[in-house]
């Protein structure tokens, strides 16, 4: 991957649910290009197509048409270019959710090491990688703590570390700050910005959160299945 190549490039992506007169066009030609290390916001009212776009980018539902390139690798062009979408998600796409959804009976290190291990990395190497990620997120001192022993903020950071474990070119964050107060929400955004720079990972943050909106340099507003790019304030935290 070269630095000039976008982390994610979407061209005229469409998604139609159903067929015939009852068909619904959830995406009507979405275009998007995000550079490595960039953090962008994806906003829009309910039913605008945000979740559908996220599911298409997350390779869990198949678009109807268009193109989708991930760090130079063509993923979709009117059909999936890979047969094993599970491996694609595991190796090339990171996910962060509103809740951490970690495995409660594993410790923080094992939760993060799970992804490399699923990709076939040996246990000691996967654990070493996990520890690096936890260090990058300043939770290495809690590496042996089981999930219920961690605070909400620590759990969220472990979840971000898990998303980064296989060093994906893109992370999809689905309302990551929704349940947090202003201070904690901005802290999460700060972490996203730092990690995006450090790991050259593009992060798409789907949000309704007005608190973090000013922190994005670019915002994609999705309305009626189409994206409209808007400049953000890019406020430093």
């Amino acid at each position: 991957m070269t630095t000039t190549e976008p982390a994610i490039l979407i061209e005229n992506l469409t998604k139609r649910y159903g067929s015939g007169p009852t068909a619904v066009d959830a995406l009507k030609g979405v275009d998007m290009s995000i550079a490595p290390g960039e953090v962008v916001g994806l906003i829009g009212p309910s039913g605008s197509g945000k979740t559908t776009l996220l599911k298409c980018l997350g390779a869990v539902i198949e678009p109807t048409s268009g193109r989708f390139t991930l760090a130079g690798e063509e993923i979709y062009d009117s059909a999936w270019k890979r047969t094993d979408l599970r491996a694609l998600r595991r190796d090339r796409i990171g996910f962060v959710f509103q809740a951490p959804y970690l495995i409660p009976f594993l410790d923080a290190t094992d939760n993060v090491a799970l992804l490399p291990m699923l990709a076939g990395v040996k246990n000691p190497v996967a654990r070493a990688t996990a520890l690096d990620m936890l260090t990058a997120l300043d939770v290495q001192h809690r590496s042996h703590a089981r999930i219920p022993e961690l605070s909400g903020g620590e759990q969220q950071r472990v979840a971000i570390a898990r998303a980064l474990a296989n060093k994906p070119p893109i992370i999809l964050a689905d309302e990551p700050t929704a349940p947090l107060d202003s201070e904690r929400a901005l802290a999460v955004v700060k972490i996203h910005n730092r990690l995006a720079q450090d790991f050259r990972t593009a992060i798409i943050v789907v949000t309704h959160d007005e608190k973090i909106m000013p922190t994005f340099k670019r915002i994609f507003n999705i309305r009626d299945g189409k994206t409209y790019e808007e400049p953000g304030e890019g406020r430093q935290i």
Partner: protein
Amino acid sequence: MINLAHRDVANHLGRYLVTGFGLGLLIGVTLTMAGVYRRMVSSGGDPMVFITLKDAQEAQFLKDNESIVNDRNRLADNPAANPPGQPGVLEAVEALQTASHRVNAVLIRVKEGHDPRQVADGIERWKHLTAYTSADMEDILVAKLIATAARQIALFLIILAIVSAAIVAFIIYTMTLGKIKEIAVLKLIGTRDRTIAAMIMQEALGLGVIGFFVGKFAATLWTPVFPKHVLLETNDAMGAFVVTLVICALASVLAIRAALRIDPAEAIGG
């Protein structure tokens, strides 16, 4: 002669006191105990006590005081048993009626080199005698008495196993349905189906292991106060453990099927 191991008495003093009280009422204080043996029970599972042959005969054939008095009066009134001028006759007849020479069974130990079957066949040539070898006795006990009880217990076990499997299946299924979002996330981040299935099965097996050891501990703890002696041998316990695990593994199938049907897309969005 009293033959009680000190340890047994110490461990089961309460039971011996209760049993001893019952025996006392039954056979009186004149009998001599030949021994009480640990884990020696009748075919019905009731505890056994060993007494001398003389006392056993007395316990079985000795009449109560009222009967003796009535018999004495009846004999005294009978001129054939109490001829006038011959008091010795009445005493002889009374002695004959209160004593018994009858023996129900005799235990024979055959010397080495002799075939028990041949010895038994030889005895059976005598009229009114039946001889059983150890194998015959075992067959009577196992094939008749124990087999019937075993069939009854097996029926209970099968019903219990089905009910247990249903309970485990219900618990695991409910737990799985409560984790739909978590499972969807695991699938979304690339976890293989067999890994998710293994996690659910581990949960079910864990439930089985905990249940088994709690049950075994409780059984061991409560066996002494159980009305009948229950003997759970190591091999049986291991077999029960394996059966428990198999039941739990089978019970998890429903939950695994439900988990594998979860769509990873459910992890994204509301």
